[in-house]
């Protein structure tokens, strides 16, 4: 980056630009074009969420948030994310440990399978659990005999959320731990540390930023998931509505301002996610650079 700035300053001073740089007006045209595109497609939607939410004043906004239905939706979203994120976090660490610390056949297939939920439509993610646990499914008789509800109930919502957020932590940790190698853990073992000590004292401090990064992305998706949860929820107000589903209900009830008020909560969460993500990215790339330096040395 530093190179570019000094080099741009140089072009301004000299009448002849370098052969590998664009003329100033091409540069300006490209910057304007890119910013215009991002302005229309990213900034305007974001601004409009908050503008619509406040269109009837701050009081109306608070009124929506005092509604018990809104509060129960917020609670359910926290429950769903609170279960699925730790589950996928433990899985991500275990999968990354198995894949990066050992050699075995079929490793690439395993990595592809872990990524699979990303290429499945959220609607299908919901559908598969309806087929498995719903009325015509193989477990239906047993479930209804024992009065266990999974579909159109909280467990289904947790399952669907877990499916769509499945790969986040694993796919963040696998490349990071691959780059860091095995030597530090092996040294710890040779020096007499137990397996758990090695993990807690050596591996975890090395991967903490990557892990946090994965968790942040996983959580953002878990709290915002709409399609998959919509299929399994049954939309029972106050019982099986998450925040995104509550937004849809308010919107379809022509309570647009209320819908945007609740939406602004999720948009704010999205902004916080972006800020945290940018901050952690910097920490993470520093950790990765340190690992690369170790490899060279």
């Amino acid at each position, binding site marked *: 980056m530093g190179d*570019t700035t000094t080099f741009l300053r140089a072009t301004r001073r000299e009448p002849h630009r370098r052969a590998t740089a664009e003329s100033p007006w*091409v540069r300006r045209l490209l910057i304007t074009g890119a910013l215009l595109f991002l302005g229309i497609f990213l900034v305007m939607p974001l601004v*409009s969420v908050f503008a619509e939410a406040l269109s009837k004043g701050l009081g109306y906004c608070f009124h929506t948030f005092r509604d018990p239905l809104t509060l129960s939706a917020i609670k359910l979203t926290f429950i769903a994310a609170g279960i699925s994120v730790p589950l996928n976090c433990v899985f991500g660490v275990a999968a990354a440990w198995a894949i990066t610390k*050992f050699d075995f056949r079929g490793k690439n297939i395993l990595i592809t399978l872990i990524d699979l939920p990303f290429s499945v439509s959220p609607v*299908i993610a919901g559908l598969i659990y309806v087929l498995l646990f719903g009325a015509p499914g193989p477990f239906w008789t047993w479930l209804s005999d024992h009065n266990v509800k999974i579909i159109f109930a909280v467990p289904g919502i947790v399952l669907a959320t877990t499916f769509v957020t499945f790969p986040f932590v694993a796919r963040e940790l696998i490349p990071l731990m691959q780059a860091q190698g095995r030597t530090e853990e092996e040294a710890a073992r040779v020096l007499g540390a137990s*397996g758990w000590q090695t993990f807690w004292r050596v591996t975890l401090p090395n991967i903490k930023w990557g892990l946090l990064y994965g968790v942040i992305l996983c959580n953002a998706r878990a709290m*915002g998931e709409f399609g998959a949860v919509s*299929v399994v929820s049954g939309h029972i107000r106050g019982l099986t509505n998450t925040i995104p589903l509550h937004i849809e209900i308010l919107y379809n009830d022509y309570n647009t301002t209320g819908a945007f008020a609740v939406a602004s909560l999720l948009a704010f969460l*999205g902004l916080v996610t972006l800020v945290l993500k940018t901050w952690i990215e910097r920490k993470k790339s520093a950790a990765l650079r340190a690992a690369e330096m170790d490899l060279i040395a």
Partner: protein
Amino acid sequence: MASKSFRVLPGFRLTLGYTLLYLSLIVLIPLAGVFVKTSTLSWEQFWHIITAPRALASYRLSFGASFLAAFVNVFFGIMVAWVLVRYEFFGKKVVDALVDMPFALPTAVAGITLTALYAPHGWIGQLLAPLGVKVAFTQLGVFIALTFIGLPFIVRTVQPVLEDFDPEIEEAAASLGANRWQTFWRVILPMLSPALLTGFSLAFARALGEYGSVVFIAGNMPMKTEITPLLIITKLEQFDYAGATALAVVMLVGSFAILLAVNLLQWRSSRHQAQV
């Protein structure tokens, strides 16, 4: 053999076993259920469901709008990535962080916001209405929502390649007499193409399955603005599980085929580069 039986690090069986168990329980077994359920249909029944006119219209819209949106994103994605890597301007870091917004903004929020913006009285809709352009509740609206969703994929795959680009290559092109446009078209773009292909397919696959951001702006009229995921939900709500599952199989096979094709292309191009 000796190196295989003696492992310095512990936990291989535990972690691999847990990984396989959890993967099977959450992903593989439920997904297999789709194919098991479809096998209860006869081939004629299956064919009849997936080639119904309403289903065909939904594929046309889903595949067409996703392809178009991903294509537009290739063009603007290169431009945004180029500007972010090569130029300095005020607020660049904020812009860089904002590119990921479609990943962080829940799809339902994106859906209602885009609808509000492009409705006839919305900020953008009222500018387009006098020109006779309707966006909300038309196929154009579906395209807009899918463009929004796919935006970060191309930028984020092209950006690292541009950052690592060896300046000597461009210098060589310039010293051999190529102007900037020729250098870009003949030298830079071909080297970006594997990354572009990856980004394109990721954006395309994501758009194919997208539901939340589309349903609000699409208007959801059968045969006109109904995407395949919505048709699946409609069938589910009518308790037509077999019909919903058959369409799901079409979508799954479609998106796996795209991923496979892209992996093969990349494998071939990397082999080709290795030979050169």
